């Protein structure tokens, strides 16, 4: 039977964003195959052992900080060159008692201070050490024993001010954590590729390292709109230094187990990104002096925030339209007929169109980059569940924090997170 589809499809709006997504994924893939990335992968763990201090800022981390500290002490690095600084940032739980167990350890230094936020905890740690390289490790993260040997050779070039590690999720249990694990491993590929052309704009809390002299030159950590790691990375880039990545320096971090906690965490990250990039560091955007970071990475990241929301609204619109159409044209036809499939199953009716196939292409490229990230970093564990959850869940949850963060920025709302 004939019934017309007179409404013009809004799919056209989504095409440019899908094109950009495919372009960006292609760019990451091509960069992975380029000489600098290949050279980075060929870089072997070094024998050099300069002095290193790893700072662990703690705020109410009683359940994880002991394991975090033990994983640091298990690093295969000369004990006299490795210092672990545990900074209790005014915890109100039993963190102080837990870290006190390490008080007699010759490699561990404990600092207790009033709560002032993560950046103040890091600065307090930095102030107590003369180590050549300063590392940070969130108190809910754990490192592989060889991670530091992977990190140090990346500082061979004196222009490199910071080095990031390869993060994945520690012991993912539910569907949401598996999804985050896949996302983190995608991040491994992304960081590895983009670092090879100096395009990184964040040095994440789990096991990023900094050259001490650069910190002395640029100053310590700042509040940075609750994303002190991003602010520091942007400051390093602004000063003309480089940020490297060690793709086999594996670090595992605890991921939020509920949607509410995940949205809260990611809203903080996204608002921090927008406030930093559109605020103090807007001069980096479209600035040829900052190369690929200014001309491609930051503009793409900003477009990704917009396109994530637009595609979500488009999806909602299509879904609503389908339901409204089904209900409006029903006119007395039983619901059992409306919502039950009828007619033969036939290839002729397979709902594949330009938009769907472009979306599938984008997804397949993402899944390939995740598989590549797992292989490059040699991250252990199965990824199948991560790929499934990433495929079916990621596109639906990301817009939730993008919308929330954009609304916060628009209305000038600042949320009250935990102090550290």
């Amino acid at each position, binding site marked *: 039977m004939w019934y017309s589809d007179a409404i013009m499809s809004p799919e056209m709006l989504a095409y440019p964003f899908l094109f950009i997504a495919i372009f960006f994924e292609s760019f990451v893939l091509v960069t992975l195959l380029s000489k600098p990335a290949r050279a980075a992968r060929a870089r072997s763990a070094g024998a050099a052992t300069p002095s290193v201090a790893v700072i662990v800022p703690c705020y109410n981390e009683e359940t994880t900080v002991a394991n975090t500290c033990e994983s640091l002490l298990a690093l295969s690095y000369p004990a006299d060159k490795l210092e672990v600084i545990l900074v209790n940032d005014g915890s109100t739980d039993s963190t102080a008692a837990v870290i006190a167990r390490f008080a007699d350890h010759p490699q561990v230094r404990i600092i207790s201070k009033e709560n002032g936020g993560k950046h103040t905890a890091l600065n307090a740690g930095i102030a107590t050490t003369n180590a050549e390289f300063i590392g940070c490790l969130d108190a809910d993260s754990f490192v592989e024993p060889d991670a530091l040997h992977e990190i140090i050779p990346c500082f061979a070039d004196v222009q490199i001010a910071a080095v990031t590690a390869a993060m994945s999720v520690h012991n993912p249990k539910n569907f949401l954590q598996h999804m985050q694990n896949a996302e983190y491993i995608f991040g491994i590929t992304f960081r590895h590729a983009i670092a090879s052309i100096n*395009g990184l704009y964040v040095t994440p809390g789990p096991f990023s390292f900094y050259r001490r002299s650069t910190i002395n030159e640029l100053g310590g950590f700042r509040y940075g709109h609750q994303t002190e790691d991003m602010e520091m990375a942007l400051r390093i880039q602004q000063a003309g230094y480089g940020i490297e990545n060690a793709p086999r320096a594996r670090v595992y971090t605890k991921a939020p187990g509920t949607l509410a906690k995940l949205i809260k965490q990611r809203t903080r990250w996204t608002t921090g990104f927008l406030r930093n990039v559109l605020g103090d560091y807007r001069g980096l955007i479209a600035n040829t002096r900052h190369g690929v970071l200014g001309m491609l990475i930051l503009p793409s990241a900003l477009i990704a925030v917009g396109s994530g929301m637009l595609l979500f609204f488009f999806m909602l619109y299509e879904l609503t339209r389908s339901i409204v*159409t089904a209900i*409006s044209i029903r006119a007395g036809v039983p619901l059992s007929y409306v919502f039950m499939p009828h007619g033969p199953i036939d290839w002729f009716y397979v709902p594949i169109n330009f938009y769907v196939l472009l979306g599938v292409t984008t997804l397949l490229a993402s899944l390939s980059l995740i598989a590549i990230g797992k292989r490059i970093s040699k991250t252990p564990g199965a990824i199948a569940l991560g790929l499934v959850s990433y495929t079916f869940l990621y596109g639906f949850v990301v817009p939730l924090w993008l919308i929330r963060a954009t609304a916060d920025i628009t209305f000038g709302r600042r949320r009250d997170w935990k102090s550290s």
Partner: protein
Amino acid sequence: MSIAARNALIALLITVALVGTVAYAINYLNQARITELSAVEDQLSIDILSLDTQFSLLEAAPCDSNASSTTLISELANMGDRLSYAENQLGSDNAQVIRLKEQYSLLEIRDYLITKELAAACGDAKPATVLYFYSNAGDCSDCDKAGYALSYLHNTYPTLRVYSFDYNLDLGALKTFIVLNKVQRSLPAFIINGKPYYGFTSLADLEKQFPKGALSTSTPKL
């Protein structure tokens, strides 16, 4: 040229190639749909011509033949569903879709006439028949509802014969058919067993226009 710029250029070329491949694949799929439609239509043409010829050959005793267009009406409905889907995918202004719609309309008219002649010649009970006229030009707000209701009725009552026509199709035979059946331009329009009915409010109201017992779920005798 920097490595990043060179990579961006290569990535752009890859993207264009991928998007081009996707566009080609979709076009290929749509062409395959058109080919499938043409094949169904060709078979339908042969079947109707065969029925027509059989009817002429046995003019003296048409009812002795096993001629029947019962299976053809389900083929016609199948064709109509496919054509409707293809029109949504390719657009109602697609030249191939319009050509197929014209051929489909001719086949519908031919089947309608043969069925009518067979019923008259053999004294069979007239099957419940609906001639449905719609428009895709945006001037018929209830056509979607009416088409959907008729789809439901046809699926529920297999004996019901539904012939759908695009009122705006530029086809001589259809225009004559419209004039002969005195169909006014007040769409959606229905000719139910010869009686005109205009507009659509609900399925229940439409069902009331059918003669008592016309809507039956029993399978007709072949």
